[in-house]
């Protein structure tokens, strides 16, 4: 009888896992089910461009079910809870799914309600986020009618999806306001809980320098405790006044993780082995992408690179073999810097982002602005739908981080 892999979440991680497993195992050996509460698959890197009118919201969305290969069952329902001990998933529509392997791929949830005042009367008017489709759309309207004043970009706390996105937002806002001829009428401020522009020292110095060059004020070690009328207020009672605020809310795991005894940590993320992607909760439970506790960025590229090792290990687990502990934390991201340019960073658990070229000496420039990187970022959307999700390899992009083009230190 075919064994059953249940995948919770039909986003980047769930879709590429399902498709890779389907290509690898015949249907009479393995039944594959993907569960998601809706049929809207958002190309999340596209959200950054919506507020500036650079991407049409319609163009970054496709149906989830259609991204799955033939022979993958798509079950549309929310998850009520996972019964870890009973090896069963209970869905909101009452279905119970038994499984030989469970893959948690439900990503991170935004928790704006956990910050006092964030969802107040200003939400969607002068206080926005671009981390959801509706949010990005509403922000587009507010930005279009913004005539000047204080524009504040704030990360409430980490972890967040795509830690470079709020910086990219600042760079693009600088470009956008210049295009509109009102840059001199706007005070643009980036407010972060970190002690610098970014988590990694070499990149933080470069990115911090770029904020400076673009006239973006940097406020560090600011832990937002409350959003009041026209001001962010930190826990230690500093305030940053704004006319328009773009806030990246707190993130956590999905609510069902909290309802599933023993599945998640205090923030609702699933404790996961950083090298094998097997959860530490139960041997038959694996996790991928933003849903895990891995010490890597919550980003699509990380999910993509994890996919290789995850699929290999699901196969090994089903065969009763020892798992492959080879995921190295590889991540790379294009950082849009405005004016048709972008930077690229490439790093893993041990190697922080440094200058050089990717994937080797003749490749794209690392930690340096270029038009080529901007084109790479735009082109990536095509690869996402046509290569990454279907589970084909993207040419020249392997799971292990390449070292050939990187400059030491």
């Amino acid at each position, binding site marked *: 009888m075919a064994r059953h892999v249940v995948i919770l979440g039909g986003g980047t991680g769930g879709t590429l896992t399902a498709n890779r497993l389907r290509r690898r195992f015949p249907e009479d050996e393995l039944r594959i089910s993907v569960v998601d509460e809706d049929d809207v698959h958002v190309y999340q890197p596209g959200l950054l461009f919506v507020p500036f009118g650079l991407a049409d919201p319609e163009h970054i969305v496709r149906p989830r079910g259609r991204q799955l290969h033939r022979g993958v069952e798509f079950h549309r329902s929310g998850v009520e809870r996972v019964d870890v001990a009973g090896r069963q998933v209970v869905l909101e529509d009452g279905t119970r799914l038994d499984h030989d392997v469970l893959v948690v791929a439900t990503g991170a949830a935004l928790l704006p309600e956990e910050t006092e005042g964030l969802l107040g009367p200003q939400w969607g008017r002068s206080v926005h986020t671009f981390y959801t489709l509706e949010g990005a759309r509403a922000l587009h309207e507010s930005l279009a009618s913004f005539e000047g004043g204080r524009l504040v970009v704030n990360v409430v*706390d*980490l*972890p967040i999806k795509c*830690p470079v996105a709020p910086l990219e937002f600042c760079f693009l806002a600088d470009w956008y306001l210049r295009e509109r001829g009102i840059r001199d009428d706007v005070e643009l401020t980036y407010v972060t809980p*970190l002690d610098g522009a970014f*988590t990694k020292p070499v990149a933080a110095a470069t990115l911090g320098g770029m904020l400076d060059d673009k006239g973006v004020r940097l406020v560090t*070690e600011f*832990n937002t*405790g409350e959003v009041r009328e026209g001001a962010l207020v930190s*826990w*230690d009672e500093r305030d940053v006044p704004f006319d328009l605020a773009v806030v990246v809310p*707190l993130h956590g795991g999905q609510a069902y993780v909290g309802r599933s005894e023993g599945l998640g940590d*205090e*923030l609702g993320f699933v404790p996961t082995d950083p090298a094998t992607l097997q959860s530490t909760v139960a041997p038959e439970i694996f996790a991928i992408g933003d849903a895990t506790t891995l*010490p*890597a*960025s919550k980003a699509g590229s990380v999910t993509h690179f994890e996919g290789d090792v995850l699929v290999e290990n699901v196969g090994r687990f089903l065969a009763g073999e020892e798992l492959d502990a080879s995921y190295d934390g590889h991540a790379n991201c294009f950082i849009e810097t405005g004016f048709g340019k972008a930077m690229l960073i490439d790093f893993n658990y041990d190697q922080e982002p440094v200058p050089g070229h990717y994937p080797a000496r003749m490749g794209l420039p690392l930690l340096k602005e270029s038009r080529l990187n901007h084109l790479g970022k735009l082109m990536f959307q095509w690869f996402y739908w046509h290569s990454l999700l279907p589970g084909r390899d993207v040419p020249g992009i392997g799971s292990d981080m390449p070292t050939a083009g990187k400059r030491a230190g």
Partner: protein
Amino acid sequence: MPTRTVAGTTVEVNDEGFFVDPAQWTEAMAPELAAEEGIAALTDDHWTVIRFMRSEYAEKGTGPTVRVLGKTSGVPVKELYQLFPKGPAKIAARVAGIPKPRGCL
């Protein structure tokens, strides 16, 4: 590795002044470490947080972030900032003699 003396004992610290080996810490050192952070007297609430930091470190290999501390220590975030101004996770880690909590990425 730099060393320093706390409450008459030599301990190893890193460049930022965090303990390298939490086993070198004793409760007798806490008042002196706290005073350096501008905390004049350690209350029961301070001790609740200090002990919680140490048990979390022992269990997980890193101290909790402020957000996790607020969710799990029983002391709300607002109060944590009153007890350990300017970053409860960092300051409490210093007083509790554990390495700097790993931030997220």
